[in-house]
């Protein structure tokens, strides 16, 4: 993950692969409640990808570091599982973004900095004013 110019092809490709691997882990979580090995992940990915075992291992390693998957030892190999369901991680992301909107140290730039229900009437009046003067 250095500058985009240093590795023009590999960084976006790795990002795309990480997504594909996560998708597969989520989709097959019911079939593999104990997690998937690197080999299983590799064999599950679309054949046309022509991926090396080490590439998949790298991707799973990166996802582990990002705490998006967890791993457990199974004999000499590791088994990988998503750190949360797609829904729970989406909920976590949404919660973080909505809380951030009302934070004084905002890390994200929102279109709307949150609005309370009692503010809605005021917003409707303001919209009417914009429509009247600029419509």
């Amino acid at each position, binding site marked *: 993950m250095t500058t985009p110019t240093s590795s023009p092809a590999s960084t976006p490709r790795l990002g795309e692969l990480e997504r594909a691997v996560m998708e597969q882990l989520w989709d097959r979580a019911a079939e593999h409640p104990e997690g998937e090995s690197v080999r299983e992940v590799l064999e599950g990915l679309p054949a046309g990808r022509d991926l090396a075992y080490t590439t998949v291992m790298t991707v799973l390693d990166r996802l582990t570091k990002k705490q998006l998957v967890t791993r457990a030892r199974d004999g000499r190999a590791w088994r990988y599982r998503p750190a949360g369901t797609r829904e729970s991680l989406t909920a976590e992301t949404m919660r973080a973004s909505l809380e951030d909107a009302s934070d004084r140290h905002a890390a994200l730039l929102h279109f*709307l900095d949150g609005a*309370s229900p009692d503010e809605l009437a005021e917003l409707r009046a303001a919209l009417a004013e914009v429509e009247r003067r600029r419509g």
Partner: protein
Amino acid sequence: MYALALALIAVVLAAVAPRIMARLKVFRRSPRAALVAWQAVSLAAVLSALAVAPAAIPFLTRTHTIACASEECPSAVAAWRTQWWAVLVVAAVVTFAVLLPLLVSGHRIGTRLRAARTRHTELVDVLGDPREEDGTQLRVLAHATPTAYCLPGRRSRVVLTEGALTALPTGELSAVLAHERAHLRGRHDLLLEYFTVLHHSVPGPVRSPEALREVRLLIEALADRAASRASGPVETARALLTLAHGQTPVAGLGAGGQGATAARMRLLADRPLPAPVVALMYLYAAAVVALPLTLLWLAWR
């Protein structure tokens, strides 16, 4: 004595000027010029405080020489020496009392922001569906609550939810995307970070939360200008209402906006300030920055 004048100016610029400027709501009609004025005032406050010690040095060395030119040299020099050191220590303390909190708060806030952004980008990259709308690369989250935001930085992202794409008609969506693109293109995150760091580096009683709030509003108003250029003020205002409406059932999180959204909508109805007023605002900004620099130059002349 210039050092004293600089210290006084620093206090006025840090504590008094922001409170007055936050009240000048008319500034909001030219958010870019207003933000330049805000940056000028804060920069001048920091420069004034940092210049206190450097401005004290020539004054002290000069008095020292004058004292020595007279007849009763030995005892006078000894007396001056003590004062010399006392004043220099006070001036240095003033300078470092400004510099140190600035560096500490800059480091603390910067680290925290970057950690939050990195974590969020990692989540959005595996959860968000990459899509293109209106010439903008998006990450779409599978969630019904409508929301739109961007992750600033080198690897910037514009994030929308399925709920936002469903709720926003084409014109409103273009307004939202233009707003987010303006944030990213203008590196508004750096501007916001700069003011947040300054805000937290000044002592509590001097701090003015209304100033930070005003700057945040101006940054939003600036991005709204871009949205307004892309799809008109009415569509932009409608997009604000659409998202506010869609978020209220979940936004029991407390209104971070504090009336800012209504203020932004009213600004969309206003025309920009006339050119001469804007020119005056830039002139004010230039004069404010020139003040501490001129005093420092006079002290060393």
